[in-house]
């Protein structure tokens, strides 16, 4: 059976393999090889038989084909109500067909499945909320991604992402040394402005352990500094682990389930090792979902809870503003109309809808809700790893239209978006559609707004 050099059923577990796939220009060779990739039908069907159980079976079986899911899907709306974008149709023609044929499918079919599972669904799970039977097609597409991954059918960037996690236990090539070094550097760079600022590494029994997204040490270290400053100003006893600081999981998007387990166990190990009272994760949607919501199940924890209580960054912010640990200078509240981007991963899929409203009530004078909002909010258009996939750029940009119109309808000039992927999506949206808006994480906003306690101010020279 032909296996490509880059595109194959093997996982990426060594640096050599990773370098080789990174060297491929835009994944050209990778996708070319994919055209010749054989399907191990026996293995595929065996996997399906083991994992395709009553929930999925029932979902596919009882779907009444009523079409109520159509309007729940932003792809359907953005593509001029193309019936081919109806969630039920999408899953029926992919996973449904795969099951019907008992895994006896062609290469072209698998590629069609991949294109559908990644470019027509960002696994936002909104359709499940609108189906009378509670058929969650987002979950089914996640499952399908897993089946596809096991057969080597996954977008180039997802294969890279999975490899990164397998090798570095982080979504990017950031080693422990790089990470610790970056913390030291940020401490140095910012302590002039915030005397006494520390980024305590590996402190045991702290009140808070901070976990984050590898893009921060890799490309945006000021995010780490900003987090440190806010912890510092709030007087928190906090720490960051030298190992197990990465909370994201591209393996979840890719459907590389074994690596999901490896990744999340690495973070849990840090929690067990440092025994913090609580863990706070950075402003990232899927990191929270991977580490807090889904992670315990990958790791096989029966309670479905991570070893230590975990907060999303917005929960921490709401808490410190509520308790007054951080005080907002009333004069610096946001005056212009501002809206909030509910991330599917921690709002619809983790029940944190109230938290952002509370935060906005503290920091904004003219807060405007998007419609719909909260659990019913639309995906930004870049979720499920879609932002990162070159092959599906076009499809993603069309999908943006729904979020664009939602934002424009609020009249807001600023979008608060505490999620790396939403942030990226809104930026790209602005570049493509020129909406005339700004967008931001919470941290830089807060840094500008909070009152610095007298004893933490830099001494005047």
């Amino acid at each position, binding site marked *: 059976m032909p296996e490509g050099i880059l595109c194959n059923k093997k996982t990426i577990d060594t640096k050599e393999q990773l370098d080789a796939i990174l*060297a491929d220009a835009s994944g050209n060779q990778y996708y070319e090889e994919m055209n010749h990739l054989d399907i191990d039908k026996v293995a595929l069907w065996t996997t399906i038989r083991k994992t395709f159980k009553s929930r999925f079976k029932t979902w596919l079986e009882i779907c009444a084909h009523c079409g109520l899911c159509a309007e729940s899907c932003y792809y359907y709306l953005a593509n001029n109500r193309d019936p081919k974008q109806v969630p039920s149709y999408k899953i029926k023609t992919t996973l449904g067909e795969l099951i019907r044929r008992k895994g006896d499918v062609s290469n072209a079919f698998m590629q069609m499945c991949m294109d559908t599972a990644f470019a027509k669904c960002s696994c936002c799970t909104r359709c499940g909320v609108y189906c009378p039977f509670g058929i969650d097609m987002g979950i089914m597409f996640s499952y399908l991604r897993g089946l596809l991954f096991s057969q080597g059918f996954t977008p180039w960037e997802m294969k890279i992402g999975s490899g990164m996690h397998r090798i570095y236990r982080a979504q990017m090539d950031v080693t422990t040394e790089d990470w610790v070094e970056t913390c030291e550097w940020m401490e140095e760079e910012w302590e002039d402005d915030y005397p006494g600022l520390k980024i305590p590494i590996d402190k045991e029994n702290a009140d808070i352990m901070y976990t984050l997204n590898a893009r921060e040490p890799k490309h945006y270290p000021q995010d780490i500094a900003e987090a440190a400053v806010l912890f510092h100003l709030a007087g928190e006893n906090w720490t960051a682990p030298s190992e197990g600081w990465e909370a994201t999981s591209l393996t979840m998007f890719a459907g590389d389930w074994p690596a999901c387990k490896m990744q999340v166990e690495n973070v849990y190990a840090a929690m067990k090792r440092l025994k913090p009272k609580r863990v706070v994760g950075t402003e990232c949607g899927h990191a929270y979902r991977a580490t807090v919501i889904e992670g315990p199940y990958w790791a096989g924890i029966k309670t479905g809870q991570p070893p230590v209580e975990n907060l999303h960054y917005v929960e921490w912010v709401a808490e410190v503003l509520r308790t007054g640990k951080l005080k907002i200078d009333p004069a610096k509240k946001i005056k212009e109309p501002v809206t909030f981007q509910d991330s599917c991963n921690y709002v619809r899929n983790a029940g944190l809808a109230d938290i952002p409203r509370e935060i906005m009530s503290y920091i904004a004078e003219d807060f405007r809700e998007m419609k719909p909002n909260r659990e019913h909010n639309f995906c930004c258009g870049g979720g499920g*790893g879609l932002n*990162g996939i070159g092959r599906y750029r076009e499809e993603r940009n069309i999908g943006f239209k729904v979020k664009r119109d939602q934002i424009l309808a609020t009249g807001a000039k600023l979008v608060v978006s505490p999620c790396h992927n939403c942030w990226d999506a809104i*930026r790209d949206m602005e570049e493509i559609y020129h909406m005339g808006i700004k967008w931001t994480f919470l941290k830089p906003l807060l840094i500008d707004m909070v009152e610095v306690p007298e004893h933490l101010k830099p001494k005047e020279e």
Partner: protein
Amino acid sequence: MFKKILFATTASPSCDHAARVAFDTAKRYDSELTAFHVFGIPTRGFSQFARDVRTGETVTLDDDYLGWVKEEMKNTYARQLELHQKCTIEAIPGVPHTEILRAARKKDVDLIIMGSTTREEDEGTYTYRSTTGSTLQAVTKSARCPVLIIGRPVASAWGGFSNIVFGTDFSRAADSAFLFAYKVAKTFGCTLHLFHAYDISSVHSGKIMEQDEIEDNMMEAREKIRKMYVPRLKGFDDYEIDIWEGIPYVEIVKFARENYADLIVMAHHTRKPSSEKALLGSTVEQVVLRATCPVASVNRPDKIKDL
């Protein structure tokens, strides 16, 4: 004088003057030079994409593109590379100021040389901007070593100076700038102008100052310079003290022009600015944009002790 120099370049014509100074200086002091280009700003979420800082286009970060960028840099600086062997070329994706600062720290360089670009060319105008302010502002604020910024064509490489203007605001950071200015003046035997511009920009907000008050303050500033800096010149007597009043960056630029300055040395000590202030830029930035000579920004003592 400088063992390791980092030349932070956009690998475009706007850095040509800076390139000349960087390579000539490295050659003169036999320094290790790194021509460092941060070519693409990556996304926040996971992707292999970056926004090319020059073209504004979205590019895929793979070996192909990286190789192409490096090759182009080699072509751009082919002549200089031939003349100075101890030079390496590096191109990486990232946020320019972050990567420049990271590289400077990691390589422990003694001097950063940057070109200054006009605002339109600056990557800060892209919405990719990740922090407030420009690359220049961020680098000058946080660098541990002197940062030499070259905007316009300059006559020579480092050295051959006749007049150095040290602009002070009496901050602690300015201490380091002074030390640097003094050492350079001593090395090259040129005139050191100790200059302070008394800020009367508050008149625009309606606060009228009496002339007496202004003059008193200027007298005081002169006295301060005498006390703070003159004793540390240790016998070096080719210095002049001048106090002008006005908007600091305008006055420094005017003063430098009138005194045929070859170099302006100042500190960039402003705090991390809030977004609104950052857009106006710091005094250093304003001076860089307007001055006809190179500007050295020095904030910290780390790298000038052994000069």
